């Protein structure tokens, strides 16, 4: 019964992973006809390039910062969207929109919002006299600002999914529990920090791990907004792998870069599965 699913996973997931494993220890290049075994030279030479080290650092920064924002934001959003109020359904739909809309659409919207000449964000900040019109911030052109922009857009994009997971988790808490806390004399923060959030901790961790794995392997925001620039300042490992391996034609080096975090992510995936099982047992 599970043979079709197994075949699907083997063909579309297993094979590419094996291929990239194979490529990462070869000297394959686009256009060259011979392939020979190169051992770990690809990994070594990757580590030796400054671009790789920047991308590695960025990957961690990008993931940690964006997911911290997402967890905090999604928790607050989920708590707010759980309360009954007029227009809740519409608001839930709007929150989900960044996730449902194609990322290219959203990111291009952001590209305009953060454009060097036509940025609406700059325009608003100028109108509020927070920045000077003669020297506006280059949202995607200055290394730090560019990293911040990419990070915020990625957080904006992954927020809805985490919100929905948390909302589902919160809905599973019987209404009695927060009510009992209220009668016991607990206010908003105490109820949520000591009762409801600990109760959904397994789900919160699943959402977090999911976000972390997804962010480590995703390059969309970087690719569309900055292409890794300025001067590799916003490069993350997946985008660097893409630029090196596909656009640069160095398949072997690209594969090595993309596989660099594989062991870490594998560990994260195992942790994710364990957590899911623990959550199942506890319920």
């Amino acid at each position, binding site marked *: 019964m599970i043979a079709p699913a197994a075949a699907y996973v083997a063909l579309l997931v297993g094979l590419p992973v094996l291929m990239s494993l194979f490529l990462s220890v070869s000297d394959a290049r686009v256009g060259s006809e011979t392939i020979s075994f190169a051992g770990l030279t690809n990994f070594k030479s990757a580590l030796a390039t400054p671009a790789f080290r920047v991308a590695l650092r960025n990957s961690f920064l990008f993931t940690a910062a964006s997911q911290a924002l997402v967890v905090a934001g999604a928790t607050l959003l989920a708590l707010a969207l759980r309360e009954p109020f007029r227009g809740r359904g519409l608001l839930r739909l709007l929150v989900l929109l960044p996730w449902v809309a194609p990322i290219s659409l959203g990111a291009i919207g952001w590209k305009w919002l953060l454009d060097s000449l036509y940025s609406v964000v700059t325009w608003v900040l100028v109108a509020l006299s927070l920045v000077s019109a003669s020297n506006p911030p280059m949202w995607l052109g200055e290394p730090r600002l560019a990293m911040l922009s990419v990070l915020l857009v990625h957080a904006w994009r992954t927020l809805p999914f985490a919100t929905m997971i948390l909302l589902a988790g919160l809905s599973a808490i019987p209404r009695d*529990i927060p009510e009992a806390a209220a009668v016991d*004399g*607990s206010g908003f923060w105490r109820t949520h920090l000591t009762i409801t959030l600990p109760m959904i901790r397994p789900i919160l961790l699943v959402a977090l791990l999911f976000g972390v794995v997804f962010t480590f392997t995703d390059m969309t925001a970087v690719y569309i907004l900055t292409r890794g620039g300025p001067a590799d300042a916003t490069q993350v490992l997946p985008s660097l792998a893409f630029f090196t391996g596909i656009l640069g034609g160095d398949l072997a080096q690209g594969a090595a870069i993309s596989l660099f975090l594989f062991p870490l992510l594998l560990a994260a995936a195992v942790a994710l599965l364990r957590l899911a099982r623990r959550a199942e047992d506890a319920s």
Partner: protein
Amino acid sequence: MAIVETRALTKRFAGADPPAVAGVDLATREGEFLVLLGPSGSGKTTVLRMIAGLEEPTSGEIWIGGRRVDGLSPRERRIAMVFQSYALYPHLTVRQNIAFPLKAQGVPRADHGARIASAAGKFQLDRLLDRKPRELSGGERQRVALARALVREPQVFLFDEPLSNLDAKLRASAREELQRFQDEIRTTAIYVTHDQIEAMALGDRVAIMDRGRVRQIGTPAEVYDDPADTFVATFLGSPPMNLLERDGRIIGFRPEHVRAAGGGTAEESVVFGFRCELTEYLGSERLAFGELDGDWAGREVVWRMPSWQPAPEPGAQVAVAVARDRFRYFDAATGARTTPVSLG
């Protein structure tokens, strides 16, 4: 200790036409155990939730201990509530569950230990303090919920059907537990249930609710013996009061007040012809279902007798008597109690 009072308390849920609670005026006495009894949908839980502050009244006032509390948050009302599900915090131990109200109320940490020990001791929870709720039995969970309610010395206890999740056997002992609790604490308590046995056993007074209104409030004996209307008469008692309609009046009498005729005088009791249709043996008692004849032909009546008494055979015609002082009279149109009428 405090008196809880509601004045014209009304709750209309959005989109629902008849209000869930329609102008309820209730006042507890100091230290009283007041039971709100009614079928599901009668509004009793909504009244309780409004008193707790978990539901906003559409109109009306709530007073606790001489202070108007509607508009105050639950935490400002200084009440404790035991929920139907007990609503224990599943990720906290018994000790932490009991400590939660103390922390939330900002009781100095130095006092926690003694107060937790005292509350836990009252309910024999001393050995369970480090367990999680899921490791407890239903009865133990109830005791934790009671201890958690008690620990902060509230002015009022509210109970929302706390026994309905227990099986029949456990329910009897849990009821006893509650009775001991009430005898000891003597704090005003409002208790919601749909179970009349619980209501009769626990209540100092019982308020019977139907469709958002209080039909009658009185001691268990008053509401059982002197129902204010036909709803109360038939809601209490199992099987309910026999109601016979004639000439715009309804006369009622309890099944246990029927007895075999003979031995009494006509001044004392009224005799009916009873044709038995079927009998049910219930162990300690027996029920005979049948029809009356003569002036009352066709009226269905239930007769309840001790099971040691000889039972009428199905199909048999028996003369039965009901003492005159056992009759209750109601208006057929409104269902309200009326003055006695002559039964001949």
